[in-house]
């Protein structure tokens, strides 16, 4: 039973990381119809930023430095995302296949750039020692870091909810996900929302990257790519354009993957992938999806 609790919470924590990456993917696809294959590169950028910050700028291993590195990682991811939208995506308006292809190219370029700059071997990132502690739940011991991931993800989910419900841009995004043409027919320039959605998506991905360095104890050039496939699966299962759906799906994917992988190494990955195929065939719009692009 103890092992189940530990696995479940670890899976939940992994799901939290998937959520951070997937939420941006979901909004970008839901609002803009862009399948962003470079989203993993945003995560990796945030991860490398964290590495650099905690080893060169504030290498004191303190919690406050770590917290700052999270913020910076988010900003790095956001900047990278906005640059992508402004330099590449914007010029391919409504050419959805070409937009997706361009992000494939960008992902390739980014990964090889990371490879060229930082080398193939993972760079170690040591989190503050407090994050090595474990917490006792019943008979089980669970790493404290898992709760950090979950906490950050919950914060992001909350911020997203507030933004969507109480701001005008949130209103525009919610409407745009459902019917983009009609939003323009109300006199609103949706393209501003595009940049915004890339910003928040990139921020969440960068943040996820920073946390991923703790989860994976380091960063390598393909860190984001490894997360990207599962983030895609999460988005499809949860439903394109629905952040709450993504959250639910992230928990499902993360816990399933970790639990099954424990008993048969690799089978969890396989099961999750098959789950994707199943959802696509039975309910293509996902759990809470609104878009049928």
């Amino acid at each position, binding site marked *: 039973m103890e092992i189940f609790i530990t696995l479940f919470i670890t899976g939940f924590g992994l799901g939290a990381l998937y959520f951070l990456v997937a939420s941006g993917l979901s909004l970008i696809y839901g609002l803009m119809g862009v399948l962003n294959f470079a989203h993993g590169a945003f995560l990796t950028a945030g991860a490398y930023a964290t590495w650099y910050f905690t080893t060169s700028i504030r290498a004191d291993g303190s919690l406050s430095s770590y917290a700052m590195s999270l913020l910076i990682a988010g900003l790095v991811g956001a900047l990278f995302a906005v640059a992508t939208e402004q330099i590449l995506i914007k010029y391919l308006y409504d050419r959805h296949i070409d937009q997706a292809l361009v992000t494939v190219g960008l992902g390739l370029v980014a990964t090889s750039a990371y490879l060229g700059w930082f080398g193939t071997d993972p760079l170690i990132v040591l989190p503050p020692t407090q994050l090595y502690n474990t917490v006792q739940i019943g008979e089980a011991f669970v790493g404290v870091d898992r709760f950090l991931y979950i906490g950050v993800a919950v914060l992001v989910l909350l911020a997203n909810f507030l933004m969507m419900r109480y701001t*005008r841009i949130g*209103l525009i995004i*919610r409407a745009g996900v*459902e*019917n983009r043409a*009609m939003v323009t*027919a*109300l*006199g*609103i320039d949706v393209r501003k929302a595009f940049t915004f959605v890339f910003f928040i998506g990139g921020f969440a991905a960068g943040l996820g990257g920073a946390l991923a360095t703790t989860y994976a104890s380091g960063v390598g050039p393909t860190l984001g790519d490894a997360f990207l496939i599962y983030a895609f699966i999460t988005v499809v299962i949860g439903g394109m354009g629905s952040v709450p759906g993504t959250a639910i799906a992230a928990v499902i994917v993360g816990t399933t993957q970790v639990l099954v992988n424990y008993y048969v190494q690799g089978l969890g990955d396989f099961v999750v992938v098959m789950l994707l195929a199943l959802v696509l065939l039975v309910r293509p719009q996902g759990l809470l999806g609104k878009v049928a692009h």
Partner: protein
Amino acid sequence: MTKALTLSDVNVTIRGSHILQGVNFEVQAGVVTGLLGRNGVGKSTTLRSIVGLVPRVGSIKLFDQEISGLKTHEVIRAGVGFVPEDREIFSTLTVLENLKLAERDKDPDYDTVYNLFPELLKRKGQRAGTLSGGQQQMVAVARALLNKTKLLLVDEPTKGLAPKLVTEVADALEVAAQATTILLVEQNLPLIKRIAKNIIVMDQGVVVHAGVPAELENPEFAKQMLGVSGGSH
């Protein structure tokens, strides 16, 4: 006559189908003009081409301003309101959110809207997707009445509505016509006869007649132009 809207040789091709084949007409300012014709002749496409929701070539003038090159949101901001066929309200937003999204002016006219459609005030917190068809239509029309417009494009607002609701919509359009110009696509001929001053008839992607609603009294005319028996329904 002041021309609120002038179309010259407007052509629209969608996926290989040449839907509008050189549309020419003028819309008089300050009154309601009906745009009539059988199903499939291109009436909705004409409205959509004016706001730029379909790619179009040709000249489209809003009063003296050429708008054929503008993007949709720019056309709307130039002072055009659009009530699409099939309403296209946002089902996941509440009634109030649907209205708020449509706000453009500093002082949107909620008073008029709630006076015309008290139901909407009552249900402002309700998710629009759970409204009845008639109530959704009210939201669609209300959206367009919130702002001051130079031209209001309305596409079959009474389609599928019960007679009582048809009257409400007609009342609303009459009120709106006092302050703006309306181009109204409709199949409901009594409604046209009641509120329209002019009519334009289309067939097979072009305009075939421009005149007045009284002409619809002539059954021959009605049948020839619209394929329906004229007079009262």
